[in-house]
């Protein structure tokens, strides 16, 4: 029981953090900084928690940032390699939604990301069944 409470408290804290992140992203997008917004969205993603609400909440934030990317080429000038693996996981989550505009955008970024990060990046995101996003 005790551990469940901790998990629930923890989930509340994570959701609060994601809400804070969401406000920051909106302001970055207003300042026309889509790459910074995407970085902020990917940072502190909660892959370790099992709580689906946290994962969904973070996906909404990441989705908002992904859809705001207009120029995919320049995205990869500014995005550091340490974001590649986590971004790939979110691209596959986007593709699994089946939503047409989301899939279009995810495929566009996926092509460039695969070019940049190689097939190893795809394998890492598909093979990891523990740290899902």
């Amino acid at each position: 029981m005790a551990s469940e409470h901790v998990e629930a408290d923890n989930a509340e804290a994570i959701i609060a953090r994601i809400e804070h992140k969401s406000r920051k992203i909106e302001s970055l997008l207003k300042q026309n900084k889509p790459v910074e917004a995407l970085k902020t969205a990917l940072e502190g993603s909660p892959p370790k928690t099992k709580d689906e609400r946290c994962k969904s909440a973070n996906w909404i934030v990441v989705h908002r940032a992904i859809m705001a990317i207009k120029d995919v080429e320049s995205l990869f000038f500014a995005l550091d390699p340490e974001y590649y693996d986590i971004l790939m996981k979110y691209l596959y989550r986007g593709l699994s939604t089946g939503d047409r505009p989301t899939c279009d955008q995810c495929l566009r970024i996926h092509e460039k990301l695969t070019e940049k990060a190689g097939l190893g990046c795809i394998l890492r995101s598909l093979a990891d069944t523990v740290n899902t996003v």
Partner: protein
Amino acid sequence: MAAVSVHKFADCVTCHAWSPDQSMIALCPNNDEVHIYRRSEEEKWERIHVLQKHDQIVSGIDWSSRSNKIVTVSHDRNSYVWNQETTEWVPTLVILRLNRAALCVQWSPKENKFAVGSGAKTVCVCYYEQENNWWVSKLIRKKHDSSVTSVAWHPNNIFLATTSTDGKCRVFSTFIKGVDTREAGSGPPSDSKFGEQIVQLDLSFCWAFGVKWSPSGNTLAYVGHNSMIYFVDDVGPSPLAQSVALRDLPLRDVLYLSERVLIGVGFDCNPMVFVADESGLWGFLRFLGERKAAASSAKSGSQFSEAFGKLYGQSRYGISNNSVQPSRLHGGIHENCINCIVPLNRKVGSKVTRFSTSGLDGRVVIWDLQNQEDLLDYL
């Protein structure tokens, strides 16, 4: 060229091993037989023995360098130790007591034991009992949650590292009373019993393959099917781990050439060189094969054209008849996944500069690093 000899023995080679003087090779051509070839002058290979006793695919072969014994394991769940008597190879059945396929085998450094990994989530450690003239198999049970894909002996002849499809790498003590002696001062802690787990490394979240110890036994390396390779220092209560992410496809097996150089082979069909810098930090250096389809996009193109060739009039064979080596078309010496790498000069204390690789394309390639100047500094 780093590759000094390329020979296609079969459509597919599951595993191979060399005789102590490296004049003969034992390999399994993807069936229930083990073929032994001898090298005559001018790179001619002559088949001199066929070892027939298994009744399913032979998954592991190891040829002991001092006692000249061959051990084979197979999906038929059995193992044989082959002894050369006059001209014939005589098998001795080793009852492993497994209910699933045996997957890999390795002689211990002193060659008085061998270890078998299996699909039955167990490891067998086998030793010879003089009084019964019989190989006995002792099992390490209930430690692995899935198939054991690879085993590797520590130079101290006691510690055994395993990788498993449950994603973990583990180190066990295999001390057997009457076979091993406790040496005071050096060697493993004297209180370790048979089957005791020394450490469990929990770095990978998917299948783990290909574990090896460095020559000193201070470091071990293994690979994950998520295109990662893991290096672990100070194997014991507080191990230090490094993980290196690969750009390309996953590895299947690794081999330490020295404390600072490691070769990885796998689905990229081209051996990869990893080196450690002065501070002990590991990183990918380069591919060993001369030519490599540089970008992954180019590679998917070549795979497509291969399928295209097969569908439309087999144009690939037409080209290869025109004295253009097929390997050139694919940009590599191997044309398919490499799943086995074996050192060639394996004397204790000497540097390994020659090794061989085999894979699903049926080729055995011998590599020599003597003329690879950028690597000699690390060896």
